C-alpha cells in the first residue's frame, strides 16, 4: 500500500481542524474541531506504524524499547493512538463540563463573549 495517501489525509484533516478552531465561535464546535485534529494525529501515528515498521523489518530494536516482542518492533504507533484516544476522552469530558458550567452562569456558549476580567463574586451570584 502507498502510505502517502493516509499521511496526506491526516495532514488535510489537521488543517481542517486548525481552520475550525480558529473560525468557530461556538465552544462546542471548537471542541469538535479539536477532535478532528486529535484524529488526524492518530491517523498519522497508525500510518507511521506501517511505514516505519516495514522500513525497520529485520532490524533488532533496543531491548528496553520492546522487551515483550523479542526483538521485533511492535505496534507502537497503535499504542500511542490508543493513548491519544484516552486523552481525547478525558479532554472532552472536562471541556464539556467547563462549557456547561459557563452556559449555566452566562447563558452563552460563544467564546468571543467570555470576559476574562469579569468580577468573580458577580459570577458566583449568577451561577
Amino acid at each position, binding site marked *: 500500500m502507498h502510505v502517502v495517501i493516509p499521511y496526506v489525509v491526516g495532514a488535510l484533516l489537521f488543517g481542517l481542524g486548525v*481552520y475550525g478552531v480558529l473560525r468557530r465561535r461556538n465552544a462546542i464546535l471548537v471542541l469538535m474541531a479539536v477532535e478532528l485534529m486529535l484524529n488526524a494525529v492518530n491517523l498519522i501515528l497508525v500510518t507511521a506504524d506501517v511505514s516505519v515498521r516495514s522500513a525497520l523489518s529485520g532490524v533488532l530494536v533496543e531491548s528496553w524499547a520492546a522487551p515483550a516482542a523479542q526483538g521485533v518492533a511492535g505496534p507502537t504507533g497503535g499504542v500511542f493512538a490508543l493513548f491519544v484516544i484516552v486523552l*481525547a476522552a478525558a479532554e472532552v469530558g472536562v471541556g464539556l463540563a467547563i462549557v456547561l458550567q459557563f452556559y449555566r452562569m452566562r447563558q452563552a456558549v460563544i467564546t468571543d463573549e467570555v470576559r476574562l476580567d469579569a468580577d468573580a463574586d458577580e459570577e458566583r451570584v449568577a451561577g
Partner: protein
Amino acid sequence: MTVADVLLLALGVVAVGSGALVVTSSHLVRSGFYLVVSLGALAGLYLVLGAELVAWVQILVYIGAVVVLLLFAVMLTRAPIGPSADLDRPALPAALVGAGAGLGLSALFADAFRWVRYPAPDPATAERMGEEIFGAWVLPFEVLSILLLSALVGAIILSRPDLAAREGSS
C-alpha cells in the same frame, strides 16, 4: 493501485469531505453527525492499515462516547434546531492558517514518502497490542489511568453547582 490503495483513497475522501462539512456547516447538530461520518471513515482507515484494535476502540470511544457527549452538550445548551447565523468568525485568517498548516504538512509528507509501495503490515491484533502495552508501555498506561480519574473528579466538581455555591458563601 491495489485494493488497499483504493480503499484508503475512498475512505480518505469521505473522512476529509465530512471533516470539511463539520467545520463549515451552519447547523450545530449536523456538524455532530458529520463528525460521526468522519470518525467512522477514520476507523475504516485504521482497519485497512492493520490496526484492528485501534479501529474498534475508535468506534467505541469516539462514536459511542465522545460524539454522544458532544450531542448532549448541544442539547443542554439549548442550541437552535435550524441554521445559526452567529457561529462563525470572518473566514479569511482562519482559512489562511488552516490551509497553510494542512497543505504545508501534506507537501512535507508527499515529499518525504513519494509514491513508494510499502508491504501491508501483519494486523495489530488485540493480543499483540496487549503485549506491547503491558510490556513496553506499562508506566504511561498507569499514568493515563490516574489522568482519567482526575479528569472524572474534575468534571464532577466543575458541574456540581452546590460545591461552587458552598465555596462562594464561605
